[in-house]
Structures are given as C-alpha cells and as structure tokens.
C-alpha cells in the first residue's frame, strides 16, 4: 500500500525524522485557513500516488493565504498521470541550500534492506544511478544484525557529506529511517529531497512510503490510511468483494484460477491477437459465489466485449465454477459471450452443467489456446 506524502511525513514524524509543519486541505478555503494558521510562505502540494507532480504544476509556492487559496483551487481537481487531485498538503516553505536523496528499500534480490544515498538529490534517482553511478552509495543491512552506527557512517562519509553537524543529523535520520522501515514493515521509505537549509538544518521535504500489504493486519493504524477513493473504481469494488482484479485496457475479460495461470491466460489472449480487459484471479478456492462476485466486477467495465474463463481445477472444482457462471447468468442477465475452458478436478461435471443449461452465450472450449482464440474472435465481432 502506497502512502500519500502527508501520510508518509506523519509516519516519519512519529519516528523522529524532521519534517516541515503542514496541514491537509481538501478545498481551496481549507488551504487558505491552513496557510493562515501556519503563517509565512507556504507550499501547496498535490497529494497523488504518482510521481511528476512538480512538472505537472501540482506544487506551488504561496506567500499569502490568498495565494494559497488560489493555488489550491487550481491544483484540486487536476489530473496528474491519470490521478485526480482531491487533497493538497499545505506546509511551511523551506529555504533550500542543498538537496540530498536517502532511501531504504526492500531488496528482493539480496533479501536485505538496501540504503541508497546521494548528495545529488531532488531529481529522478534512476537518472542519477544511470548518469553518475559513483555518486549513489548503496549499502545493505543484514536483518539479523540490524542498523548500527557504522551503517550511517558509511552512508554519510560515502556520500561525501563533510559538515560535521550535517553528518550527525543525516546519521540520525538514517537510524530513524531504519526504525520506520522495520517498525511499519515498509517495502520502501524514500526521502527525495532530503534538504539542508541555509541554517544547516536537515529535513525530509518529501516522503514516499510503501507498506507491505501482508503486514497491514498488525498495523491497523496504517491499514486505515488506505484511500479507497483514489483507486480505480472497479479495483475498489473488487477489493470490497475480495476479488483479485487488475484493470487492463482491452475488451476480453479474463478470469483464471491462480495468479500464474491467470497471467499466462492474459498473455495468451494477447499473443493470439486480442486485448485483455483485466487480470482476475479466482484464487485457490473459487466457489460459486466467488465466480459471481468476479463476474460482477468484470462486467461493470464497459469496454468488455467477451469473457474468457480459463480454469484448471486442482483444489478449485470445475463443477463449482460452472455453477457460479450459471448463477451469475441468472442473477445478472449477462449477454456477453462467455468462453469457458475447464480442465482438472470435476471438469466433466462442469462441462455437463454448462451444456445442459442451454445458455446460448456460453461457449465451451477444450484447450487454453483454443479458448483464447475463441474469446478474441467473439470480442471482435
């Protein structure tokens, strides 16, 4: 789960990482009030779960509350890379002497947390990594050892930070970032930029935090930060119904059981010339109600022209899937063509049920490949 900047900063603050004071606002009026309360120059920042806010005009300096109101008015409702801005963060503006970059990520490859730091912050870090790789210092932490002062020293000296007070502040932030990362079970904690003010104060000016979804059960305070409004409405509906669903951009609605098989089905639909509308995984179990819920989500997508069920029964029973399809047809009156390929546990019984139903828009196919071809044909016409 990705956190908004303001949520990430609140989390940082809890672990003692210095951030600027700020207020959340969902309207221009609130932004004005926030600016007035904070006093002085403020920054109005679009809260969206994507990068490139600055370039899109989503970050503006305001010298007065009136300015803040005007800027918030422009920013709220903006579309930034497909995300509509519904919230702005109004915070005390910072004078910036230097911009650093500091992050801690979950490195799957090394199976250890990975610190990265550079004094060339404020820009896209992948660009720094590509153009001046030596400027980017990388250091893994053994999870059983934990983060020790030497890690911080290696990062600070490695990055070439020379001022003793800065060294001390950054080293402290390194330790606290590790606490944040492990304490909130994050997959990513990124500070870009980590600024140095003209007074020599070091502060996180942005916050990008991703929490492990699988760990949210033991972080209820973080779990409730999820913003259901921000998600794709179909994905939000799917989450609500417990359906594993990712929206794609085509016209063949794809359902499979198991992540790998479903991904493979999406691929095969593409390879035979089709355009998948979604990835929808019925999961390991897959009872009739699960099928109904999944079809409810998929058929809400107006782009969908055909549906392809690719089921390999193992724990999932094919007869149960067939029952779900028939139940959904009855309840929802689906008229879209539905191609069904059933194999494995109770496949014959499933095929029999579908055959006997006499449903005209259900098209059985014998193999995964044939099913994909048929579904693509049906979507096309």
């Amino acid at each position, binding site marked *: 789960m990705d956190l908004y900047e303001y949520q990430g900063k609140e989390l940082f603050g809890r672990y003692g990482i210095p951030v600027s004071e700020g207020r959340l606002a969902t309207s221009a009026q609130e932004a004005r009030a926030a600016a007035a309360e904070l006093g002085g120059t403020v920054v109005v920042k679009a809260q969206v779960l994507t990068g490139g806010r600055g370039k899109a005009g989503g970050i503006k300096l305001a010298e007065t509350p009136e300015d803040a109101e005007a800027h918030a008015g422009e920013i709220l409702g903006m579309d930034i890379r497909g995300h509509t801005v519904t919230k702005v963060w109004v915070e005390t503006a910072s004078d910036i002497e230097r911009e650093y970059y500091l992050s801690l990520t979950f490195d799957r490859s090394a199976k250890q947390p990975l610190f990265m730091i550079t004094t060339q912050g404020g820009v896209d870090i992948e660009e720094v990594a590509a153009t001046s790789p030596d400027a980017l210092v990388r250091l893994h932490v053994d999870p059983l050892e934990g983060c020790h002062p030497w890690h911080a020293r290696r990062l600070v000296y490695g990055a070439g930070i020379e001022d003793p007070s800065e060294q001390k502040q950054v080293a402290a932030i390194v330790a606290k970032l590790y606490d944040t990362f492990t304490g909130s*079970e994050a997959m990513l904690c990124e500070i870009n930029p980590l600024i140095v003010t003209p007074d020599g104060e070091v502060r996180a000016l942005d916050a990008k935090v991703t929490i492990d979804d699988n760990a949210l059960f033991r972080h209820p305070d973080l779990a409730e930060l999820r913003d259901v409004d921000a998600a794709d409405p179909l994905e939000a509906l799917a989450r609500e119904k417990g359906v594993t669903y990712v929206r794609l951009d085509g016209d063949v609605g794809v359902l499979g059981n198991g*992540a790998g*098989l479903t991904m*493979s089905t999406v691929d095969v639909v593409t390879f035979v010339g089709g355009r998948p509308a979604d990835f929808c995984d019925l999961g390991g179990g897959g009872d009739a109600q699960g099928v109904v819920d999944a079809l409810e989500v998929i058929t809400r997508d107006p782009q969908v022209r055909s549906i392809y069920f690719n089921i390999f029964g193992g724990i999932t029973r094919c007869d149960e899937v067939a029952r779900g399809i028939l139940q959904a047809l009855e309840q929802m009156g689906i008229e879209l063509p539905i191609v069904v390929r059933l194999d494995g546990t109770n496949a014959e019984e499933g095929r029999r049920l579908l055959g006997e139903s006499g449903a005209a828009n259900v098209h059985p196919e014998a193999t995964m*490949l044939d099913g994909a071809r048929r579904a693509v044909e049906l979507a096309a016409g």
Partner: protein
Amino acid sequence: MAILVDTGTRLVVQGLTGSEGRFHGLRNRSHGTQVVAGVTPGKGGQDVEGIPVFDSVAGAVAETGANTAMIFVPAPFAADAMYEAIDAGIGTIVCITEGVPAHEMLRIHAFLRGRGVTLIGPNCPGALSPGRANVGIIPAEIFREGSVGLVSRSGTLTYQIGHELTQLGLGNSTIVGIGGDPVVGSSFVDVLARFEADPQTEQVVMVGEIGGDEEEKAAAFIESEMTKPVVAYIAGFTAPPGKTMGHAGAIISGSEGTAQAKKDALEARGIRVGTTPTETAELVLQLVSA
C-alpha cells in the same frame, strides 16, 4: 530418486486439525506420503483419522521421527510455526500459508543461513514426487512419474504445464512450487541444483513470472552449473508496471522484473523459452526425443 519429498519423508502437519490442514494432510497420506503426526497446540493427544496430534513440533519429532513439516497455519502465526519447525530439527519445511509479511521472511531467510534446513514457500503449493510422496496441495492425479523436473513460482500454471506434459506422454520426477512471495525459502537456483544432482531427473522445466530477478539468477546458474537441459516459461508479458498480479511477489517495480527481461536473460544463455504453456510442453518433448 526424486528431490525434497520421497519415500523417506516422514511428515508432520502443523495445523492438521484445521479444515485445510486436515483435507490436504489426508490427501497427501492417500497419495502414499507417510503422514506421521500433526501439531495443534492444546490438542496434543487427539488424532486425525489415526494421525497422532501433538502440542509441539518437538514433541512430534521425538515421538514419530518426523523429518518434514507442512505448515497450514494462518499467516499471523506462520513465522512462529516456521521457527518452531527449524528449532525442532526438521530438515525440510513446506509452508503453504499465503500472506506472510515480507519482513518476517527477510529475518527467517537470514536465520536459516548455515542451519542446513530447506524451506519451500511460503505461499506455495508444495512438492510432489509422483508415486512417492506429496507434500502440499498439488493435485497428484494430473501428474505421472517420469524424468522431467518441474519448478515453478505458480500453482495452477504448473498444473496446466504438467497436464500438457502428461498429454504428450511425459512424466515428472518432482514438481516443486517455490511460492509467489517476494522472499521465499528456496529459490529457482536452489531447486535447479537439486534437479541437477538427482539421477531420476533428465530435463527440467522452470516456470517463472514477473517480479524480482530469480529467473535471471537461474539463467546464469543454468549456463554455468547445469548439464541437464532446461526449458523455461515466463508469465506476465502483458502485466502493467506497479500492479501486484495475484501473487505478492508478482509485480514489476519500476523497470525491474519484467517478463521480457527474464526471457532475454534466459535466451541470451541459450535456454529456450516457450511462448505458451502448450509450446513449452512441446519444447520439452523435443528434448526428450532428441
């Protein structure tokens, strides 16, 4: 010979008295696996259709000589169950549980270092050596005994490929689902090394998917360390970046972990990659016939 699970497997099921643990434990037993014990704290002394239940894994090991554990406990308790099995001296642990927090797995992965314990999973379907032993949820009836080793991050996709192999008259030495989480106990490389050393295995199919770089590491390993031919399949060519595709580990992060990158890494080392499960099975047939 097969790998990981075999006729010498003596299985203890952690969570045997739960509905899934019971269902699959008994199913594994009916495939011929020696299911010697179950563990459910507080239910020590009971039994599940003749399988004795213990309060602790250590108790099960002491009384039944269990050497392999299968974990079916809910995600919040799975790490505890893994540590318990490790400390009880279990040699092979298969964790089926989905949803184990990634940080727990980081620590467990580090903790396993130098302990000589094999962990498969979590979030995996387990391991099946057809005709010998089945530990997990893989439906044994799809597969037949043979010479093809099969290792996969996925469950049902593995069944699909196994089914295609069976239809071509091919069988498997062992089918291993290593799991779909970002950090799992055994990687492709770990399992490939076992297939390389296993006399029964003559060819290997590796079924990967988007996310991480374990397929890339496997490609390098296959090139430098393996004499047996390997065919690969990768799922997720059309997956969009930044979206978790069903498995916690199946996600393209930035530009990392794409199916194309994995395919390229494999092909650059002369490893053939099937475009569809069907083609993958056909590539294996070519190997066997060659």
